[in-house]
């Protein structure tokens, strides 16, 4: 070093600094979903309700309905209810609890952080899916019918998983666009219901309903009917675009520009 009067400005040296990897952020996000009481309760509720609903179905359903697909479809309803809340909370709790200040100070790339949240949400949905499959399989075996698994196809699994993933993404999307827990949860439950009411009560709209109303489009899946036509698949895709992708994109841009307070 030269001994000039002008001191060189001290500059950071990154040669020995480990980068914050994407997988690290995903595991931190997964950790954050279960390290608070609210998170623990929510995950426990998903598991407990899935099991409870299956037991309930076991008790009330007719004997010839005790097949794997029916069990799986029934397991989907509480999950479809609670997984989106998990998706909402992953995003909005950063704002309602104001942890976003800390999160984005440690990982300034908002793209990476939100990306990690999405992956974490999808992983949770995947786990719920695996859980539902396991519970449904046990229940089917316990029912002891010879044809219990006879209608099961790969499509069953793919569509059921797809439904769960769409659900949780919808929660994330509403979380991103509203950045407020109660508002996002209310929007998630009220808007599709309101839309359903409009589309079923106005007769001139009933032809359009499967293409515009997400509840109508997804109803075969929720009812455990996994043999879909191409048209039905298209309807699920179109409603997903309107109800999930558009809010998601808008919310994404909002968060990328937002001032973090």
């Amino acid at each position: 070093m030269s001994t000039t009067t002008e001191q060189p400005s001290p500059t950071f040296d990154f040669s020995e600094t480990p980068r914050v990897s994407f997988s690290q952020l995903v595991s931190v996000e997964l950790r954050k979903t279960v390290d608070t009481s609210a998170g623990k309760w929510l995950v426990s509720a998903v598991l407990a309700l899935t099991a409870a609903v299956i037991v309930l179905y076991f008790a009330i359903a007719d004997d010839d309905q005790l097949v794997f697909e029916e069990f799986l479809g029934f397991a989907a309803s509480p999950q479809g209810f609670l997984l989106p809340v998990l998706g909402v909370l992953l995003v909005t709790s950063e704002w309602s609890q104001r942890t976003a200040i800390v999160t984005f100070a440690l990982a300034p790339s908002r793209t990476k952080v939100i990306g990690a949240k999405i992956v974490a949400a999808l992983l949770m949905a995947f786990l719920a899916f695996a859980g539902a499959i396991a519970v449904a399989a046990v229940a089917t075996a316990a029912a002891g019918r010879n044809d219990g698994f006879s209608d099961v196809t790969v499509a069953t699994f793919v569509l059921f998983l797809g439904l769960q993933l769409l659900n949780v993404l919808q929660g994330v999307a509403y979380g991103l666009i509203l950045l407020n827990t109660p508002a996002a949860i209310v929007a998630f439950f009220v808007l599709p219901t309101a839309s359903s009411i409009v589309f079923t009560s106005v007769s001139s709209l009933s032809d359009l309903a499967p293409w515009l109303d997400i509840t109508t489009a997804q109803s075969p899946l929720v009812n455990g009917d996994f043999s879909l036509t191409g048209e039905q698949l298209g309807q699920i895709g179109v409603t997903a675009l309107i109800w999930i992708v558009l809010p998601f994109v808008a919310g994404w841009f909002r968060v990328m520009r937002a001032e973090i307070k």
Partner: protein
Amino acid sequence: MINVKNLSRTYGGYAAVDDISFTCRPGRVTGFLGPNGAGKTTAMRMMVGLTTPTHGETTIGGYHYHDIVNPGRHVGVLLDASAQHAGRTGREILMVGAKTMGLPTTRVDEMLAMVSLTESEAKRKLRNYSLGMKQRLGIAHALLGDPAVLILDEPANGLDPAGIRWMRDLLKGYARRGGTVLLSSHLLNEVELVADELILIGRGRIVAQGDLKSLSSLDSADSALVTPVDRDALVAALRQEGHEATPEGEGLRVSASPREVSRVSVQHGLLLNDLRSGAKGLEDLFLELTSPVQRESAPSPDSLAAVSTSKEMSR
């Protein structure tokens, strides 16, 4: 080292931060002082990329915050000790930070011990923390990655006197080891004992900056407080020499240096009971410079900033 250049942020027509520039050097604690709403927090948020500046930029260690690799390892940030999930335990909050930065669990325990949070306190949820405990936890969080630069917003807020002293010693020690510290406060007495340098901000603008000594001498207008034995005689004598004297308390305030008042009294053979400098203290100066109500009566901020800069250069 932190380099803030022409940083501004406007909301609508309102300038929350208005063209501020300053430098924080390694080995020094820089106090960022201003009343509530002066723009300290907005300025700090811009430094760490949480708020986009309308104009200007900040570099820390020569980089924009977004370009710093694993920033927690280089810059310790505490903007709001309450901005943590109320349902998370203190220890878990540090764990989340450590995992993000890729630090071992042992580092969390080290930091908890350093800020004197006991094992049972660390297991409590944040909602059951006092503000002082939150500040300690926040400091632990900022220091997790063993950073070279610390940016702390009102870290002494909510600490008891012992806690304030603890924080002071901690930051002084940190700077002595070569660290750069920027800490904000709205209380002068909180920072004047720890800061090597002060930046006074009011209404989004820097109104003065420099070390304590140069700031204290900023009140350049000569003023003396004098209690003469014969008041009328001294007033007449001062007027004869061209100095204005106005009654204040038991004596007079004179717009001249104490030395000049002393000269006049000797020359006219007048006895004095008391004579001292009428210069305002740093606290008065701070209030005058930063208070929106009294701004009109304060010396022009620009001229003060110029004085402080020239003083700094000559040091």
